[in-house]
C-alpha cells in the first residue's frame, strides 16, 4: 500500500468516518507500531499493546488534523513517540545509563554467542531518545529526515543521538562478545 493509498484511506476516515478504511490502516501499521513499542518498553508486551491501542485511538480522533504534508507513517510514528514519552513521564522509569555505566555493566558479562545477546538488555543501556533514534534507524529502516520529523528535532540532533547510541551499544556488545 503506497502513501497515496494511505492518504486516500485517511481522507475517507476524516470525511466519512469510514471505519473500514480506518481498520485497513490499523491492519497495515499495527505490526510496525507494536514492534516499535515492544522495543521501547524493553519487551513489555502488555504495555506495548496498550500503547499501540492508544496510538491508533489518538490517530482516529486527530485524523482531521493530518494534512498529508508528511507521510502517514511519519505522522503515525510521531503520535506513537509522543504517547510513549507521555507514558514515560507519567511513571518515570529511567532505565538508561551513561557510557561509563554501559562499560561497567559488561564487566561481569559472559562471552556468549552473538545470537544470545538480548536486544532488550542492549537497548536498556540507552537513553530514551537514543533508543528511539536507534530503533527507528536500524529496526524500522527510516531515514534521518523522517526520524527528525518524528522526534520533532533537527537532523543534527538525531545524528548525535545515533552516534552516542552507537558508541554505547558498541561498548556493550563488544564486551558481550558480539562479533567474536
Amino acid at each position: 500500500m503506497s502513501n497515496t493509498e494511505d492518504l486516500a484511506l485517511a481522507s475517507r476516515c476524516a470525511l466519512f468516518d469510514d471505519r473500514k478504511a480506518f481498520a485497513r490502516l490499523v491492519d497495515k501499521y499495527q505490526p510496525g507500531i507494536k514492534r516499535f513499542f515492544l522495543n521501547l518498553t524493553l519487551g513489555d508486551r502488555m504495555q506495548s499493546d496498550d500503547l499501540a491501542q492508544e496510538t491508533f485511538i489518538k490517530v482516529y480522533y486527530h485524523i482531521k488534523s493530518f494534512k498529508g504534508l508528511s507521510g502517514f507513517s511519519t505522522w503515525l510514528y510521531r503520535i506513537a513517540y509522543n504517547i510513549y514519552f507521555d507514558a514515560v513521564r507519567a511513571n518515570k522509569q529511567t532505565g538508561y545509563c551513561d557510557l561509563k555505566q554501559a562499560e561497567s555493566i559488561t564487566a561481569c558479562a559472559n562471552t556468549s554467542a552473538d545470537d544470545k545477546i538480548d536486544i532488550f538488555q542492549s537497548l536498556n543501556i540507552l537513553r530514551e531518545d537514543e533508543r528511539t533514534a536507534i530503533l527507528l534507524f536500524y529496526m524500522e529502516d527510516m531515514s534521518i529526515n523522517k526520524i527528525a520529523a518524528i522526534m520533532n528535532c533537527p537532523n543534527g540532533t538525531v545524528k548525535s543521538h545515533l552516534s552516542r547510541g552507537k558508541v554505547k551499544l558498541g561498548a556493550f556488545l563488544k564486551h558481550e562478545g558480539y562479533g567474536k
Partner: protein
Amino acid sequence: MENNKLTDSELSSFFQKRKQLEKHDPIFTWRVIKRLPPYIPVKYVSSMIFMTCAAAILLIFGLKFDIFLHEITMLLVDHHIHSEQILVLFVVLISTFTFLLLQAIKTLNE
C-alpha cells in the same frame, strides 16, 4: 572509545537478526475499532428522520382519514379533476410512499 565502535553494517545485522516479526493480529484491530465512539452514519439519521415524519403524517391523517379523503376529493373535483385521475394520483402517491418506506427499511437493515 574508538575500539568500542561497531560499524553500521554490524549494528544493522544485530538489529535485523533480532527484528521481531509481529504478525498481523485481527483481534488487535477489532479491539481498537471497539474502543472508537459509536458509529452514527448520516444515512441512519436521515432514515430515522424520514420514518418519524412518515409516522407523524400517518398518525395525523390516519385518525381523520375519511375526512381527509373527502376533503382532498372535493378539492380535486373543484379543480375539475376527474375520479379516474384522482385514483391514478392516489396510486402514484401510495406507490411513492411505499417505495420510500421500503428504501428506509432497507437502509436501516444495512
